[in-house]
């Protein structure tokens, strides 16, 4: 057989599935990262903030609207500690607005890392990171237009002797982390611009898109593979279920992943053992029943010379034993091979069974009704019907047999006028060797196989038998058989 993926061990398949999903999702991320331009940065440029403070309607590069509001009190910066980025923005903004830096308050949002780089990013995606002198140098080098960065003052007396740079950033193309800016107006009130809502920044949105696309691409793959992986297991479960109901079902085919094949072969072994065990027991029962018939026959001949009344009683005992043996053998045989099916007239069959039993003195009648044709084994169906009618006469004094038609099936109804069966035992009476407590005596006894045999015949024909108590009293046995097609 050609090795196929579906016959690989579950372990390998799961491993391959995980690996494949991982690879696909990362491939999507990589493709998105390299093939698409970077999204516009979140944040504000100096000129946007300045225009907003002047009262113009401004839309930031990532598509959010900026609007200035006028307030009475000066906004208090959240942070009192002066760090390097705030004065830079403040000075640039003041210059852009043409006011003194004292008239401007800037509050940079975010903590730690978000504040550190003072120039976050150029529009075209080039990053400039670092403390002012270095960053300014880089920015100047990288900026397309030198005008974007203007050095205001250069002195060498910074803290700890570090060089100190005073400069202004004016470009539209430089974007700062979100900050709020306030401008003091002539009347002492403040015009305030708040940064746009930080929720779903362009990069976050981009990430979300990657994730969605990746998930959409990998989900069908994962679905297909998972299905492929579980199908043999489900088939196995179904087959196991079928075997449970029919011990003669053919052994399962060893297909699918290695683990499932192992389970299948173990299961087949177990089934074979079980069947052998059942067959051994069945054969033993059949042999005992069979071998009883020879001594019974000798007895029958030996009592010929006994006195007539004793002989009659012995004859009855022998007949009863013979009946039990026959029932056991019929039941045991029910498991045997399938008898050939012929098309038969159900009414004629029912009539002949009723006639045969009526001739033996039983009170049995066939009610008028529809004709019905089924495909079946005449011997088996006759035995089934005989058992049902005999039961009805035995426990219910008389049997009324009727036929009925249903779409696709033919029904035989056998009713009696007896005490019926307790509701709880309506199913149990079909169990082999089951007898109602009340009937566990010699006169009506039997072996308790009649209904078991009848049901096995009905089921063998693709039908079934159900018992119910009639509301007007008595038991109703309803046989449903598939009508001849």
């Amino acid at each position, binding site marked *: 057989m050609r090795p196929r993926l579906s016959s690989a061990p579950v372990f390998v398949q799961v491993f391959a599935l995980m690996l494949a999903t991982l690879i696909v999702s990362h491939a999507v991320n990589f493709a998105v990262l390299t093939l698409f331009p970077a999204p516009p940065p979140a944040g504000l440029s100096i000129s946007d903030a300045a225009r907003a403070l002047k009262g113009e309607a401004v839309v930031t590069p990532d598509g959010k609207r900026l609007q200035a509001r006028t307030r009475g009190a000066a906004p208090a910066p959240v942070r009192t500690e002066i760090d390097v980025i705030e004065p830079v923005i403040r000075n640039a903004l003041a210059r852009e607005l043409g006011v003194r830096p004292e008239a401007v308050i800037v509050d940079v949002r975010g903590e730690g890392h978000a504040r550190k780089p003072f120039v976050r990013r150029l529009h075209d995606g080039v990053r400039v990171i670092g403390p002012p002198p270095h960053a300014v140098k880089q920015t100047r080098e990288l900026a397309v237009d030198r005008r974007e960065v203007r050095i205001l003052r250069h002195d060498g007396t910074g803290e700890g002797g570090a060089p100190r740079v005073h400069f202004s950033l004016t470009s539209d193309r430089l974007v700062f982390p979100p900050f709020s800016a306030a401008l003091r107006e002539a009347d002492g009130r403040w015009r305030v611009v708040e940064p746009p809502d930080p929720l779903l920044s362009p990069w976050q949105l981009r990430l979300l898109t990657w994730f969605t696309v990746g998930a959409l691409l990998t989900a069908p793959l994962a679905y297909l593979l998972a299905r492929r992986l579980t199908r043999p297991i489900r088939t196995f479960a179904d087959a196991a279920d079928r075997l449970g109901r029919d011990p003669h079902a053919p052994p399962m085919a060893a297909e699918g992943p290695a683990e499932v094949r192992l389970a299948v072969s173990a299961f087949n072994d177990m089934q074979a053992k079980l069947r052998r065990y059942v067959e051994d027991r069945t054969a033993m029962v059949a042999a005992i029943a*069979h071998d009883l018939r020879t001594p019974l026959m000798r007895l029958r001949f030996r009592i010929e010379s006994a006195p007539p009344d004793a002989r009659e009683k012995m004859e009855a005992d022998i007949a009863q034993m013979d009946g039990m043996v026959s029932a056991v053998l019929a039941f045991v045989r029910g498991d045997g091979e399938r008898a050939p099916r012929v098309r038969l007239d159900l009414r004629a069959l029912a009539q002949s069974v009723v*006639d045969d039993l009526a001739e033996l003195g039983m009170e049995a009648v066939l009610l008028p009704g529809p004709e019905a044709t089924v495909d079946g084994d*005449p011997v088996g169906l006759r035995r089934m019907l005989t058992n049902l009618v005999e039961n009805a006469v035995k426990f219910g004094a008389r049997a009324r047999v009727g036929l009925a038609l249903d779409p696709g099936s033919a029904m035989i109804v056998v009713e009696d006028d007896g005490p019926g069966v307790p509701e709880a035992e309506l199913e149990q009476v079909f169990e082999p060797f089951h007898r109602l407590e009340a009937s566990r005596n010699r006169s009506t006894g039997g072996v308790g196989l009649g209904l078991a045999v009848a049901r096995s015949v009905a089921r063998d024909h693709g039908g079934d038998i159900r018992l119910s108590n009639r509301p007007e009293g008595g038991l109703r046995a309803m046989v449903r058989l598939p009508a001849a097609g």
Partner: protein
Amino acid sequence: MNAPAPEPESSARILVVDDDPGVRDVLGEFLSRHGYQVGAVGGGAEMDRALVACPPDLIVLDLMMPGEDGLSICRRLAAANGPAVIMLSAMGEETDRIVGLELGADDYLPKPCSPRELLARVRAVLRRRRERGGQAEAGAAALEFAGWRLDLVRRELRSRDGLTVGLSGGEFSLLRTLAERPNRILTRDQLLDLARGPTNEAFDRAIDVQVSRLRKKLDDGSGRELIRTVRGEGYLFAAEVRRA
């Protein structure tokens, strides 16, 4: 049965073939009490010797025996046009009966049969043989008439379109009796005698009931009446019958 009447076929020789010595004893004793000359053997090989030494008219043959089984013996005897055979089987299944009869047995009895039943079958088989001049039965497995087919082995009646019509035991015997003697008037007494053998205790009214049921079952809508009533005399089977 304690004072057996002399048998008309009392000269007949019967050989019992059964592996069970007890059965051989009781059968031998019973049949000789009824005037037959009985021999008994325990298997196929012994039977062959007995056949040469003293050929019987009838063999009562057990089906299940160690060594050569009854079916194979039966097939051998039928092929050699040997004596009549009544099969005895403890299997007692319908299929066993069919197989036995198809292999050429003249009759079949399930164990444990009653002595009376055995005696009736023995007489019937011997009588049939005598009627056919001692020849083995021609082996008609079925009778065909007017589109119907009566399977004598399976005891089934099949219509022209292949539908199997169930017959009760009495109906089958009656129909067989009628169809085996077509176009002859048979009185109720004759029918009772022929259909049920001499041991029946039914009244002749029962025959009328069976006939009317048979007529219903044989009604294929053509309006043709196969079983005719001959007023004051009996019944007549009006059809050409072919043995198949």
